[in-house]
């Protein structure tokens, strides 16, 4: 018991307080005493004592009442109940409320020593857990989701809100928009964050394999099943299951999963014994599932089960104002990974990055920056370093007049910049007033 703790002894008998006070002093613990529950609560308000020894029988507020208040107001405080032979029932009640242990008075010195050993180990594990959880939160929480555009701000504000419930979430967004990162952030913010997060790409495996992966199988039920295997629906046990590309699963699998969501039970392949499961489902798709429901391609009941809350992740072309931030983030990331020092992007290169439509979204941008950093010979990325990016094809034909071409070009730049006049004016290298005049002249308005 090397760890020094802060201990409070709560007992109306001065002789008991004094005995325990001197005993704990011999271990170098910080010791305080209180002669009543009220005094103990007052002292807890001023200092976060880790461990309280509480006598059950006290006038005014008894030990059980004090324990209830402590567990509600200071839930991290460990409480040990000390009681006489006559009050075992109360001791059992105390354990149910949340006391960590109880000692019958008078106790053998080594009993108290053992309790303290156990508490010390528990405290050590708890502080390790808190440290690791904090570390994990830091590396998983919003770190890789970058953006300050209104569209992303909306997503950021939704994450902590939806994380608190257990409702199924459907993330909708094009490929490469960061759906899995959002799913991980929701998991990290939820009460399940200390439990597993399992991601499965439903589009990447055939139906039979997906079924076996999700539900598990018994030994010998098919060729190659040399041993029984638990499915991810069981392994995820209390955590979050992320099913990417949910739109790719077969109607049969939709029915199987619908049943799991309704009954919270699964039966592994080859077994007849259902097993209870508990997980939070987050699904993701790049397809328009609502349209597929109306067309009869996707099951309506399953759609509504997985789509209690829908979060749309905007494509990069609709939040081009985030591109400079993302570029900066990926530059830092790949400079660290490659130990190269590239910290600048020329204005022309940034214009090119902003004009490009990024059909592969953030993932494509990340790959582009990685490639450019690897091949760059200076600390500044220029247009020549991004020559593999094909600039967008202009949407005008050779039959357009100069005036018509100007109109089409301005409209295109406005669309690319989400109709942000200042940003569009910067790209066009004209001032905002001029752009406003041109928009008026060409009757260009945000749709």
């Amino acid at each position, binding site marked *: 018991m090397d760890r020094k703790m802060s201990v409070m002894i709560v007992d109306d008998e001065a002789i008991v307080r004094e005995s325990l006070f001197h005993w704990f002093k011999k271990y170098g613990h910080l010791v305080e005493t209180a002669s009543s529950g009220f005094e103990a609560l007052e002292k807890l308000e001023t200092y976060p004592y880790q461990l309280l020894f509480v006598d059950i029988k006290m006038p005014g507020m008894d030990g059980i009442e004090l324990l209830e208040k402590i567990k509600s107001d200071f839930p991290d405080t460990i409480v040990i109940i000390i009681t006489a032979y006559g009050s075992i029932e109360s001791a059992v009640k105390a354990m149910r409320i949340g006391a960590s242990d109880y000692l019958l008075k*008078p106790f053998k*010195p080594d009993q108290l020593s053992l309790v303290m050993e156990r508490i010390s180990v528990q405290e050590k594990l708890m502080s390790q857990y808190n440290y690791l959880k904090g570390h994990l939160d830091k590396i998983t929480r919003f770190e890789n989701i970058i953006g300050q555009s209104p569209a992303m701000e909306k997503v950021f504000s939704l994450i902590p809100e939806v994380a608190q419930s257990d409702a199924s979430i459907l993330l909708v967004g094009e490929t490469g928009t960061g759906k899995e990162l959002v799913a991980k952030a929701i998991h990290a913010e939820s009460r399940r964050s200390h439990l597993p997060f399992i991601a499965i790409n439903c589009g990447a495996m055939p139906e039979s394999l997906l079924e076996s992966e999700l539900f598990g199988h018994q030994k010998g039920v098919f060729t190659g099943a040399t041993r029984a295997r638990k499915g991810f629906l069981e392994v995820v046990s209390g955590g979050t299951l992320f099913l990417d590309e949910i739109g790719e699963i077969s109607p049969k699998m939709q029915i199987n999963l619908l049943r799991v969501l309704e009954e919270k039970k699964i039966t592994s392949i080859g077994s007849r014994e259902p097993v209870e499961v508990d997980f939070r489902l987050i699904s993701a798709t790049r397809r328009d599932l609502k349209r597929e429901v109306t067309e009869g391609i996707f099951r309506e009941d399953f759609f509504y089960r997985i789509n209690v809350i829908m979060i749309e992740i905007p494509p990069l072309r609709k939040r081009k104002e985030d591109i400079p931030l993302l570029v900066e983030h990926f530059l830092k990331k790949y400079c660290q990974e490659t130990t190269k020092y590239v910290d600048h992007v020329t204005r022309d290169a940034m214009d090119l990055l902003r004009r490009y439509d990024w059909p592969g979204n953030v993932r494509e941008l990340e790959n582009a920056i990685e490639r450019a950093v690897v091949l760059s010979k200076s600390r500044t990325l220029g247009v020549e370093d991004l020559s593999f990016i094909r600039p967008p094809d202009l949407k005008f034909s050779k039959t357009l007049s100069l005036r018509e071409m100007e109109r089409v070009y301005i409209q295109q730049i406005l669309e690319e910049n989400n109709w942000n006049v200042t940003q569009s004016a910067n790209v066009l290298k004209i001032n905002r007033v001029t752009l406003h005049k041109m928009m008026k002249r060409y009757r260009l308005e945000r749709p």
Partner: protein
Amino acid sequence: MTSKKISVGVVPLGDIPEFDLQVIVDHIIGCFKLVAQILPRFEPPGNALDERRLQYNAGIIIETMEAMQFSNYDKVIGVLDKDLFIPIFTHVFGEARQGGKCGLVSLYRLAKNPDGSIPPESSINERAAKVALHELGHLLDLLHCERKKCLMHFSGGIDEVDEMSLDLCEYCTVYLQDKLR
């Protein structure tokens, strides 16, 4: 080990054999390198006897000793053959308050093995020396130590008293040197 010569008085509380007291004195001199001497006996205070438990309250005896004049001694260890307790515990082998002046050793439970058999006299004397040195350690402000072999490790039972050594671990040795400097 020390640069400041602390004097320790070993006082019999009741009829304690001279040899038992001398063993404790010799260990204080030998292990802690302090000055130690046997003092005249006195009877344990009558109000220390708890008639319900038929045990002696260590706290009351220590308070009585602290009120007595042991002006020539920095620390005093009382030795008695009565069963000692402090109110919250069933029993104690010895008692001392952190940084206090007076401590106690009870021979009562040291004279029996955990299985009920009677140990040789030498074992009882060694146990008494360990408990006396442990309590003196507290009087010198040493804390309980987590190392099982260290003299300052807490012993809840006789087997643990037997398991610990008569020596301080390297950490407690340094700590004691600092305290006595």
